[in-house]
């Protein structure tokens, strides 16, 4: 009997301490990451150019580079990242439950996601939009000719909502067949289940190139939505939000200042360059990082332009033009806030 009483007392205490712990919950993701010695980053299950693993399991892509930049800034090593592949449905739960430290998985920054999920978007690393892939045999040149058509779409994306919005706004009818993965969506399109496939423009070119007969389909010129894609963190840790936001900004700023992974250690008298090199200024202190944080990012991952050209630029199979994802001084809308 005594043993039983002891056991119940112990179990009650254990449960009680649970609630106490929950009560004094303070998030310090930076401390956790540095204690673990690695950054856990949520990525896609395979989106070529954005986040996809190669045959030997090495991840690459522009989204992957954001993870690597944060690892370089916080741990001094861009390779200390553990990648967790997530489906569109899983991503937010994985982040808010603490399974991952940050999410960098072509995720559209929307009002609802930013305000009601307990999450915060740290910036934009690719400005995308929704486009259409259409069978050439239909002879369609513009979305406005697609009244009454059937569309193949992937579940759990903003695509579903944009499509419905566009057709309602233009008083046109449509049917949608919603699949779970992007591979199934492509399969449905190829088999003729739908007249058109709709997805982010950045993915359409890649999708088209993997069709059995790429010349049987065309990408329409129309873009019907804004899809600013960017990294996401939990709302309860502002220090961590700043680290992720400014790691991405450092990549953009480096391109603007003309420093690459090759030229980062060159002697320069420009105060802006010296601040990014960690030689002057105290930008690191308020982030709680080493003086080398931005130097590590640029030396190990490269600037934004390098990452873009390496993963999705014209020399890659994805062949995306810079378009609006060009620096503001070159006619695009990429603009990092001032580094001072």
């Amino acid at each position, binding site marked *: 009997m005594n043993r039983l009483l002891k056991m119940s007392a112990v179990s009650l205490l254990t449960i009680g301490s649970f609630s106490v712990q929950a009560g004094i919950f303070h998030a310090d993701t930076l401390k956790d990451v540095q204690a673990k010695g690695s950054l856990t980053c949520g990525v896609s299950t395979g989106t070529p150019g954005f986040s996809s693993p190669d045959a030997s399991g090495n991840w690459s892509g522009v989204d992957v580079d954001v993870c690597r930049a944060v690892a370089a800034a916080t741990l001094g090593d861009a390779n200390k990242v553990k990648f967790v592949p997530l489906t569109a449905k899983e991503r*937010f739960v994985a982040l808010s439950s603490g399974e991952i430290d940050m999410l960098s998985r072509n995720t559209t920054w929307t009002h609802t996601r930013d305000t009601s*999920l*307990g999450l915060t978007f740290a910036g934009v690393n690719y400005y995308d939009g929704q486009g259409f892939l259409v069978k050439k045999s239909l002879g369609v040149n513009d979305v406005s000719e697609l009244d009454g*058509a059937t569309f193949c779409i992937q579940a759990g994306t903003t695509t579903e909502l944009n499509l419905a919005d566009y057709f309602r706004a233009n008083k046109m009818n449509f049917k*949608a067949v919603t699949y779970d993965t992007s591979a199934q969506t492509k399969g449905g399109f190829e088999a003729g289940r739908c007249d058109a496939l709709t997805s982010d423009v950045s993915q359409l070119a890649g999708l088209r190139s993997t069709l059995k007969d790429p010349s049987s389909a065309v990408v329409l010129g129309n873009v019907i939505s804004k899809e600013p894609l960017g990294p996401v963190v939990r709302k309860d840790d502002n220090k961590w939000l700043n680290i992720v936001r400014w790691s991405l900004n450092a990549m953009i700023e480096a391109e603007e200042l003309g420093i690459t992974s090759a030229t980062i250690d060159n002697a320069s008298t420009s105060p802006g360059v010296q601040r990014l090199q960690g030689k002057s200024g105290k930008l690191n202190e308020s982030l709680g990082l080493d003086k080398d944080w931005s130097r590590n990012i640029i030396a190990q991952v490269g600037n934004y332009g390098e990452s873009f050209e390496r993963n999705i630029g014209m020399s890659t199979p994805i062949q995306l033009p810079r378009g609006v994802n060009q620096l503001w001084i070159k006619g695009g809308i990429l603009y990092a806030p001032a580094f001072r």
Partner: protein
Amino acid sequence: MANSWVSHFFIKFFMFTKLKSLLYNNEVRAVLFQILAVVVIAYFAYQAFDNMMLNIEQRGIRSGFGFLNNESGFAVNDSFFLEYSPASTNLQAFYVGIVNTLIVSITGIFFASIIGLVVGIARLSNNYLIKKMATAYIEIFRNIPILLQILFWYSIALNAFPSPRNSINFFDSVFLNSRGLYLPKPIMDGDFYFVIASFVIGVIGYIFIKKRSDKKHDETGIVTNTIPYFLGLVVFLPMVVYFASGAQLDYPALKGFNFKGGTDLSIEFFALAFSLSIYTATYIAEAIRSGVESVDKGQKEAAAALGLKNTRIMRLIILPQALRVAIPPIINQYLNLTKNSSLATAVGYSELVTIFSGTVLNVIGQAIEIIILTMLVYLTISLVISLILNIFNKKMQIKGG
């Protein structure tokens, strides 16, 4: 029993004033252990829930069921009976999901039962070919995972049927293509209600005639053929009224990319209902077979000695007894089929999981509320199926002592 036990306990309780002697009383201890267990479990559940709510609040995640009244904003491919558009609310999307789940489950249960019954009996046939074919069917389809079967039949359906412009055409009113089956739809105005009314009258009339003929059969043994009455009342009467009243059907016609007008069943619905039916039918066939085999051989021999034909022996003597054994495992299979219908996400049939814990969950992001609602729906459907079939099972059991 229970009352006297409780009062006994309380008498014991008051008799032992010392705590120690109370603790060493066997009966008291037995009850105390159980109360303690319940308290610990309840406390743990409460703490877990409390912890969850605290975390949700701290992280600024929206909670509650207010989102159900928000506009859904997305389109759904299949919608039966209910009007639905992207301007509808999430609650309406939820209802569409439930109806779609129910329709594909009921269709699946209906065909699985028929196929299962036929194959189950065929497996016991004396004809070598029929027996072996039934065995082969069961062994093949029971041993391939259902998800693979759904994907397989879906890709077959997508590639085997023609494109909309080359649809298989039945009398210019029914069309079949790789997107689905297009059927004429009655235009529900005043005229069509006459057709529906005449059909209802026909069915009631037929039931009346059938009852009378059954009574006559019980009393005199004379069998009346009621099939002509059935055709006349249930089939011809509504048809005559349809042509006489001038009621209209809305025919599907190819306009632009797709068929417009009429009503349609998507190819995803067919692939899912078909796969669920032929998969579950194998288990039902086995249940029927074990039921039939459980009936004593003497029953069949006695019936044969009375001069009954084989089909009548099966229908009147063997099956009623076999079902007693077969119904409990068949209930299980109906429940499995309903739950398996959630695999529809794989082929894009818009049932509850696809719509609600798929798209709505993504738009809204309130995983806990949405998953709880989805689970409650499946629980309710399963409990209702169990209840109905348990009542049926009770009726089939041998009555009295």
